[in-house]
């Protein structure tokens, strides 16, 4: 049953009456989103005394706003410092940081915020009216389909590696190998943990993210003593309101990209266990694939910032759909929200939309309001936030190292994670110095375990039949799309070569 427009308008007015709470929650969300090692889940856990004490609708408004804002905030440090605030914003570094280095950090921030908020609004709006249909999608996406979706993300390694295929594949392979460390996903047998208990759950993502991106970047800064070129510095110093408007214009010139990458994020988010990281990488890979100028990706172009940011915020709505519709949380933050809702006596599952539709639909209406509020609060701040890059690198590098080492320790509280961060920092630095792509490595670390888990699960369910991967119509459609997406770059190149060969012939006539 779809909600009536009048009902949605009522919910909108109710959520908007708590604008001050949304403002507080989104501010906290953006700050913690930008802090590597600290996510929305930890923050909501720490604020449980508040969310458990207030009414359930107020608690939901607070949690949902904080959750959305944390996804948007992750892009700030990705763009300005090449340090992703969370896994979902790792793909933003690929083009966001090169933009900042050219002195276009403010425009990149605006693109990131507009894409996040438009993507979030589109998917929240879609979730309100298409919820019953999208809920069914979760039933059709099983391990077999997930294998193909994860492969979409992994093919990005080949795209990134196109400059030096062997080096790119080695970096991706290194990431996949690192991802294979830890207990296996079916039998929970610890493997290749080298006797470290701390590795039983696999190599934790935060120390890898911080090491590979933040520490290695700080070491590069210390080595070269500068981030911006002289020209870039001049451009960055001149940044003002004009640049904010320019960023908004660039974003809305790519409205269709924002919409379809957000939908990619929404669909991936619906699958429990798949998260914003895979959504962002898949969206980036697809945006590059269908771009007229794929060779410019990675050099600092607006499309490379818009696609991952729109997708990871689209994923926020998707994350909450299985929680509300079937009572299965799609991610860690959704799991914490489930605790709060259950404490307040909210019954999750299909009955939620009959017994308490104001809660079920209210979640997505709150998202809509939160993204609207953020659109007006974040954009004016970009010109000030972008000044971060003007801090002298001799001061910035030590601050980055000190803060991120604390961030690496915070999630699990193990000293071991600090050693791991240092290890990956040195590996990341060596990779950068020797021309190996650290993003390709990160894709392997994030997607490798997901691929293995889904392959093993599918084989286990089918009794070891490899044909299971081609047993469902949806999976077969996805396989065809995957093959097409792998062939398109070669076909485009072949066509370009053919045109180039024909043109001189035409000119000679």
């Amino acid at each position, binding site marked *: 049953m779809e909600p009536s427009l009048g009902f949605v308008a009522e919910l909108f007015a109710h959520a908007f009456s708590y604008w001050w709470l949304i403002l507080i929650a989104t501010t906290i969300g953006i700050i913690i989103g930008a802090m590597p090692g600290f996510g929305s889940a930890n923050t909501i856990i720490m604020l449980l005394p508040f969310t458990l004490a207030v009414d359930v609708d107020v608690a939901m408004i607070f949690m949902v706003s904080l959750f959305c804002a944390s996804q948007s905030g992750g892009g700030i440090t990705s763009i300005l410092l090449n340090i992703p605030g969370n896994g979902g914003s790792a793909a933003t570094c690929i083009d966001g940081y090169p933009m900042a280095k050219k002195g276009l950090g403010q425009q990149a921030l605006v693109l990131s915020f507009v894409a996040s908020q438009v993507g979030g609004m589109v998917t929240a709006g879609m979730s309100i009216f298409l919820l019953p249909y999208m809920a069914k999608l979760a039933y059709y996406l099983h391990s077999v389909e997930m294998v193909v979706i994860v492969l979409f993300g992994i093919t990005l390694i080949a795209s990134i590696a196109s400059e030096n295929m062997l080096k790119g594949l080695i970096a991706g392979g290194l990431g996949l190998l690192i991802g*294979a460390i830890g207990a296996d996903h079916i*039998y929970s047998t610890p*493997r290749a943990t080298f006797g470290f208990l701390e590795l039983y759950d696999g190599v934790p993502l935060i120390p890898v993210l911080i090491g590979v991106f933040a520490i290695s970047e700080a070491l590069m800064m210390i*080595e070269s003593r500068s981030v911006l070129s002289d020209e870039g510095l001049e451009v960055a110093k001149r940044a003002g309101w004009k640049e904010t408007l320019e960023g908004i214009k660039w974003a809305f010139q790519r409205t269709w990209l924002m919409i379809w990458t957000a939908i990619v994020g929404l669909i991936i988010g619906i699958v429990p266990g798949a998260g914003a990281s895979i959504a962002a990488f898949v969206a980036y890979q697809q945006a590059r694939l269908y771009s007229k100028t794929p060779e410019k990706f990675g050099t600092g172009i607006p499309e490379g910032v818009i696609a991952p940011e729109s997708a990871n915020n689209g994923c926020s709505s998707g994350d909450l759909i299985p929680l509300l519709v079937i009572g299965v949380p799609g991610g860690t933050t959704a799991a914490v929200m489930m605790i709060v809702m259950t404490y307040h006596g909210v019954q999750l599952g299909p009955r939620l939309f009959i017994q308490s539709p104001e809660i079920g639909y209210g979640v997505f209406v709150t998202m809509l309001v939160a993204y609207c509020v953020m659109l007006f609060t974040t954009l004016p701040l970009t010109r000030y936030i972008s000044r971060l890059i003007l801090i002298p690198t*001799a001061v910035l590098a030590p601050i980055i190292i000190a*803060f991120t080492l604390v961030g690496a320790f915070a999630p699990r*509280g193990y000293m071991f994670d600090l050693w791991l961060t240092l290890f990956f920092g040195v590996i990341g630095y*060596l990779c950068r110095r*020797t021309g190996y792509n650290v993003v390709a490595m990160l894709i392997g670390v994030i997607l490798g375990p997901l691929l293995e888990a889904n392959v093993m699960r599918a084989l286990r369910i089918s009794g070891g039949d490899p044909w299971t991967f081609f047993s469902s119509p949806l999976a077969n459609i996805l396989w065809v799309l995957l093959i097409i997406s792998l062939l398109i770059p070669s076909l485009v190149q072949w066509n370009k070569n053919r045109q180039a060969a024909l043109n001189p012939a035409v000119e000679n006539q």
Partner: protein
Amino acid sequence: MRLIDATPALFMIALSAAIVAGTGDLPYWADITPGARFFPVWLAGTGILLALLLLANLYSDPAGGRVEIPDARAVVRVGLTTGGMIGFIVLTPFVGMVLAGALFMAFLLLVVLRQPLMPSLLTVAIVALGVEGIFVRWLGVALPAFPFSI
């Protein structure tokens, strides 16, 4: 072919070998489906193959994979920073994370990056207060504390 150019390939081979050795006692096949060792062994095999390809490339075209080595002063700065981080991690359990972080930053600013004394000390104080304020007081993270702190 210089050793530094071949280091990534050698590291890949070492890691692959370590993964194969680390999964030695696990089943490759369990009942009707692949076991816990299946995936890592295939990945390690592919890793070794790629590394050997890279070594072959370097052998046939030594200039192709040549790595640019930074100048000696830059190497010293990076080495000292890495050493400083090791010192930070070693010191943390004894003096607490905030104090260890402050000492590390002071070392980095004054010794490695040769920054002026007063601005450096001010930066150290601001960051130490920031870590204490944000992580410990606001977010309630239990960082290793100084043994005699209140």
